[in-house]
């Protein structure tokens, strides 16, 4: 029988995969993918908990997370575009003008 824990563990694993992606990626676009993965992981957890408590709040939260993810993408891509216009690159290693 699949219990809540199963879902949560999957969620945890996917979250960690996302985290690894964030750590690994140097290309900003790909890095954003990884953050999406993390948010999706959380969505699974919310949906699962919501299901097991028979409570709608979790679904609400997941719903808003999706909305937030969408807005983030919009703004994030906007910033990436201006950055790309200026730098011609999305590589993080080229982006270290300010340091120290």
């Amino acid at each position, binding site marked *: 029988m699949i219990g*809540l824990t199963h879902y*949560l563990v999957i*969620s945890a694993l996917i*979250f960690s995969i*996302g*985290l690894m992606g*964030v750590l690994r990626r140097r290309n*900003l676009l790909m*890095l*954003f993918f990884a*953050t999406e993965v*993390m*948010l999706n*992981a*959380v969505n699974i*957890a*919310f949906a699962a*908990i*919501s299901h097991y*408590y028979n*409570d709608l*709040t*979790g679904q*609400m*939260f997941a719903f*808003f*997370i999706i*909305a*937030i993810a969408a*807005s*983030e993408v919009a*703004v*994030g891509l*906007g*910033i*990436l575009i*201006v*950055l790309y216009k*200026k*730098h011609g690159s999305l590589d993080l290693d080229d*982006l270290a*003008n*300010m*340091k*120290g």
Partner: protein
Amino acid sequence: MLQPINVSLESLNLITLAPMLIAVAGGLIILILDLINGKLHKSLYVMLTILVLVVDFGATLGLNVNERGFFDVMLIDGVSIVSQLLIIVASIIFTPLALTSKRFHEYSYPEFFALFLFMVAGFQFMVASDNLILIFVGLETASLALYTLIALHNRSNSYEAAVKYFTMGALAAGFFAMGSAVIYGLTGSIELYRVADVLAARMNETGLMIAVFGSAVLLLVAFAFKLSLFPFHTWAPDVYEGASAPLAGYMSVVPKVAAFVVSIRIFGMYIDLGVEWVRIVIIVLAVLTMTLANVMALVQEDVKRMLAYSSISHAGFIIAALALDTTEGTTAIFFYYALFMFTNLGAFTMLWISRHKVRRFDARYDHPYEKFAGMISIRPVGAVIMAIFMLSLAGVPPFSVFWGKIYVMQAAVNSGYVWLAVVMGLNSAIAAYYYLKLVVYMFLKEPVKDVDTVQYNSSKPLMAVVGFATLATVAAIFYVQPLVSYIYYMISASGY
């Protein structure tokens, strides 16, 4: 089958929404105005923004303490009122800084002001709720607007800053969401008052602590990022440097106040529940933050970057007050920010006044120390004012931040954390060095170039802002009493 829902208008308590609605409406009005006539001067928008904010301020001030509204999503307690007032006042000070004598990219967008007002509304929502969803949505609204405002400065550095802030913000959002999920799993609710009740009942269950700690850690990471605590502070110096000076000053106050409010609600809850572990972690982070930021600020060559580190250090200073979780500690947070706000915004305004498109002193920095060398002989009044801001930040009495400092330290002492107060004292001493460095440059060195440029951007509105900030910094001793008693009343009324 579903029952029809009857909701009376009174029970919604719509008044609790008024301040945010005003801000949002203001933003929309600006957008509409721009649609109607695209050639309106920025001064119009500036004044409009200020007007909206003033009305907002009035509406906030008129709220009753401890009311809930809209299915208990809105929470108007003392903390939220005080923090909203702080946010609005800081915003009012920030707005006129658009009226420089020279033109800057971002202010040629009317949308700038609309976004700004949406951001204020976002912060207001964030502080006026204990529902994690609304907090999250408000936070993201404000953050997204803020990222854009930073990028709008339209320089290579500001894009870099926006990207860094955005990316790390996204990661932090992930942590926040995950933390909320754990809380939800633990309690079946995401409304903090209920969370607290359920958790209190479940505290004795075996094996649960790991999840409690875990949820705290995940949320802590998210807010430590916002509050720029070590090791989540790395974005702060770069973002402050890349953002325009007023925005940097603004960022060192407003988002942090908002984040503090949420932190008080969340971590205060944990500590109240007897999870001492959270308190210890926060104090350790606080000490690390103030110390490391201080030592890093020592070696900076740029004033703005130095002020960025100093803001981090100040945040570390205050988060310690949060960990105390006493009424005084919580009061101290707002009290400190209220006093810090004027000085810090004043200092950043001084940088703004001296801002150039071309970097005349250093290939990398806009405001290297050399720029201010010998300012006393060029602009004595400016130098004295800047020195007052620096001394105030260093905690020299009787300037404003000093009173905040002793209040925080007193709060620490009162809770039995004398060692923490000592650490705070020593850190203030370290910090004095880099503030003093600027004073030394201004007063004790010869000018590097014939710099009439230190007041390059100066205009009447900016002077007024600086003048006001100076007055607030110097005359702090006269308004500390009403301020602290008001804040204390508000905080204790809301039960913190």
